[in-house]
């Protein structure tokens, strides 16, 4: 059964992600239970919330996700779901993340307007499968006040420029993450989701 599981926990944008997946003809199921997570061809971890709140809401779904990711299942984190892939965040106190990618989530530099909100250009390095068929760079829709500092040497990184370079996307083996919102980034965002769908089918 070729199925993407969108992790269902009480945060914003879960529905928007499902709408976008339906639009591209991708079969998706909302769940937070170990069994569907173990059987899925791929997982999407959405999230619009504060980091600590989101980790708490994720609760006992964290372990099955971690297990699936370590077993090589494709996992895509979006916005706060992406930030949760890292070791820790300092948003409103110190919080542990899923620890799938080495790095820390910190505040966007305060010499810029925060939140970083709107369309910004992301440049794609070679070999990032999420950006297949999108050329060398595209704009995506961002809405966030924290960003990840990646320490993982095995992670490929795509940046956007907001006064300083901010990490817009990472890929470490089967673990993918986007700080922006593909479900709200028009046709190029839908293409990112199509690419993830294709990765899950490989």
């Amino acid at each position, binding site marked *: 059964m070729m199925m993407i599981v969108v992790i269902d926990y009480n945060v*914003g944008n879960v*529905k*928007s992600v499902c*709408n*976008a997946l*339906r*639009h591209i003809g991708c079969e998706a199921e909302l769940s937070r239970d170990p069994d569907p997570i173990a059987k899925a061809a791929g997982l999407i971890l959405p999230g619009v919330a504060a980091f600590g709140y989101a980790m708490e809401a994720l609760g006992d779904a964290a372990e099955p996700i971690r297990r699936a990711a370590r077993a090589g299942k494709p996992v895509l984190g979006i916005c706060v779901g992406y930030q949760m892939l890292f070791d820790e965040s300092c948003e409103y106190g110190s919080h542990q993340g899923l620890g799938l990618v080495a790095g820390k989530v910190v505040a966007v530099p305060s010499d810029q*307007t925060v*939140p*970083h*909100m*709107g*369309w*910004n*250009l992301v440049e794609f390095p070679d070999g990032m499968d999420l950006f297949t068929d999108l050329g060398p760079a595209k*704009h995506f*829709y961002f*809405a966030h006040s924290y960003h990840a500092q990646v320490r993982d040497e095995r992670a490929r990184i795509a940046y956007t*420029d*907001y006064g300083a370079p901010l990490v817009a996307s990472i890929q470490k083996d089967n673990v993918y993450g986007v700080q922006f919102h593909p*479900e*709200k*980034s*028009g*046709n190029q*965002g*839908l293409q990112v989701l199509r690419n993830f769908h294709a990765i899950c089918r490989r």
Partner: protein
Amino acid sequence: MLTKRIIPCLDVKDNRVVKGVNFLNLRDAGDPVELGARYSDMGADELVFLDITATIRSRKTIVELVERVAANVFIPFTVGGGIRDVEQIDELLRSGAEKVSVNTAAVENPDLIAEAAQRFGNQCVVLAIDARRSKMRKDHWQVCVKAGSEPTDIDVVEWAVRGEQLGAGEILLTSMDADGTLAGYDNELNKTVSDVVNIPVIASGGAGTLDHLYDAIVEGGADAVLMASITHFGDFTITQMKEYLRDRGLPMNL
């Protein structure tokens, strides 16, 4: 660097998109979900849906509309018109809108802006201001409420500043004098407001040519341009607008 934004505006009345001149003489412009989906696909940066009937009876309709829009539109969108309290805002955000715009209710109860900003974040709260040039004082604009039908004594510039202080994340600034005329934005108004606030200003009312869009951004200091007539009925596609602005040196999402 963030791009400048092109935002088609869909005024919705009885489940149809309409557009008038100076808020009057409405013409039908199509189905809101279909039109919204088309703009999303054509490369618009955001959409604004304004329920211009905004009666109690239409509340349930607008939530259903937002759900249908969210299932077909894959760019951020704002919903406004007749929003009275944070419970309504909560419902609209949960139905799939990124932002809500408040107008009359915020004038009557400015704390609504603060309450909404604290609960949902500043980025969700757009303060919509319908501005009319004062006939008595030069370079002075008064805030109008109830879909522009009632002028108040409130000064637009003071209201914009107060709105930012209360927690609005953006100002949607509509010139009632220019609205629907295709004669250009009121850039004195745009400039006066964008000079005194730090949050993005969306220029609205009067777009008729590609030059008008450029002028609103460069002369008016707007971060985004909103338009209705020229995209619903006019000769310009979203891509044409963006290419034109990019070729004149502005950062655009293309």
